[in-house]
């Protein structure tokens, strides 16, 4: 049953709020490890503001969304369904997936694209407690020298990078903070 809370908390001025949120999504994906803040969404807990804004900006009826067990709650399902119209799916069909890091594992259930179409891969939104510029050392496209980001793991992301040009892309969210980790980024343990 749809709860009243799920009907509120969307963008107030959709075209403009989505434009601002997308610019943050674009900047962070272009600069792995760079943390920016995003506002405009008021999703139900445990969905963070940043994850909510990403979904409102990018998800619609063409993009199945997978909710990991940590986020598969009636309020969250209703909110996403009402505001984006995205069908909720299992990992194998998902274009976007949302959840805590351990709830999203194992990663090999998600689509990594095919050699002719590496873009047909899932984007994972990993909900974190905090995001800071220390920890794992990142290099690669979008990073001038090196960047640091508090990743929840190292080996799993390295295994994903090794699949390039296939692989998953990640957004990391904590509150209204957002950072990205595309498949091109090379990761060294600090």
């Amino acid at each position, binding site marked *: 049953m749809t709860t009243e809370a799920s009907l509120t908390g969307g963008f107030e001025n959709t*075209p403009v709020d989505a434009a601002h949120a997308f610019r943050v999504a*674009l900047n962070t994906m*272009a600069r792995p490890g760079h943390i920016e803040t995003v506002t405009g969404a008021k999703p139900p807990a445990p969905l963070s503001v940043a994850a909510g804004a990403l979904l409102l900006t990018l998800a619609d009826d063409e*993009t199945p969304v997978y909710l990991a067990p940590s986020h598969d709650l009636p309020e969250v399902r209703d909110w996403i369904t009402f505001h984006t119209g995205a069908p909720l799916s299992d990992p194998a069909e998902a274009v976007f997936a949302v959840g805590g890091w351990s709830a999203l594992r194992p990663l090999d259930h998600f689509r990594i694209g095919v050699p002719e179409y590496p*873009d047909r891969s899932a984007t994972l939104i990993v909900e974190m407690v905090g995001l800071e510029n220390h920890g794992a050392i990142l290099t690669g496209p979008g990073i001038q020298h090196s960047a640091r980001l508090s990743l929840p793991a190292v080996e799993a992301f390295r295994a994903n990078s090794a699949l390039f*040009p296939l692989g998953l892309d990640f957004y990391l969210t904590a509150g209204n903070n957002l950072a990205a980790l*595309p498949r091109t980024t090379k990761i060294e343990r600090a």
Partner: protein
Amino acid sequence: MTETGQYNFAYLDEKTKRMIRRALLKGLAIPGYQVPFASREMPMPYGWGTGGVQVSAACLTPDDSFKVIDQGADDTTNAVSIRKFFQRTAGVDVTEHTGEATVIQTRHRIPEEPLREDQILVYQVPIPEPLRFLEPRETETRKMHSLEEYGLMHVKLYEDIARHGSIATSYAYPVKVEGRYVMDPSPIPKFDNPKLEMAAIQLFGAGREQRIYAVPPYTKVVSLDFDDYPFEASKADHPCALCAATHTYLDEVIIDDAGGRMFVCSDTDYCAKRRAEGHTGTMGTPMNEDAA
């Protein structure tokens, strides 16, 4: 009368923008790879920058300052009409100054002034597939990209050398992005190729061909060449006739029917800025406030 109330912000509907935005993000995640997207009909003909316009529409926010150049110039029909289009449908500020712009849409040039981290460069692309004139079938070129099979491109450059003594390709010079995908940098002069490694985000939109691709900041972009015939960023061997610059890309302008010609900066904003700073070429006059 403002038309921002009559159209959705930045003209396109939200569902179209979401589709383009998802393609842009995957493009950034796989630098140089051409992401298919469902290009829309735009209120301008194919070939006038429909791809670039759709990418700009998906990126613009009301706080942006927007600049459009057509082969370096801010004042050509194409540049003026695209600038006006977004002024009217997105209500953004527009500028002709490279340094003041946050989003720059370009047709066939990279501005002379180095771009910063907070800027986005949007290219209008006619043919996104660098292998298209060598292999007309999309199914084949896609397979070639997936297998990293780029020998044909080197054969083409080699044939240039065999025929002309040097690599004669002077624009849309193929590059390899981050050691993986061969990419068409759009028909920019090869003089601009070294600038493809920059601090700004570069987004490419091909409307008719329905492809989007991207190059994140500081990504390695290497122009294809041979050890014994290295890549050379060439330009006309003259100084600018208006501002005396010797380091800029020049347009050749025929000025009479007796063989007279002049070479001027193709980047009009950069040339005007130099003249305002007091640089004067052989055919230039000192810049003064009253002159138009």
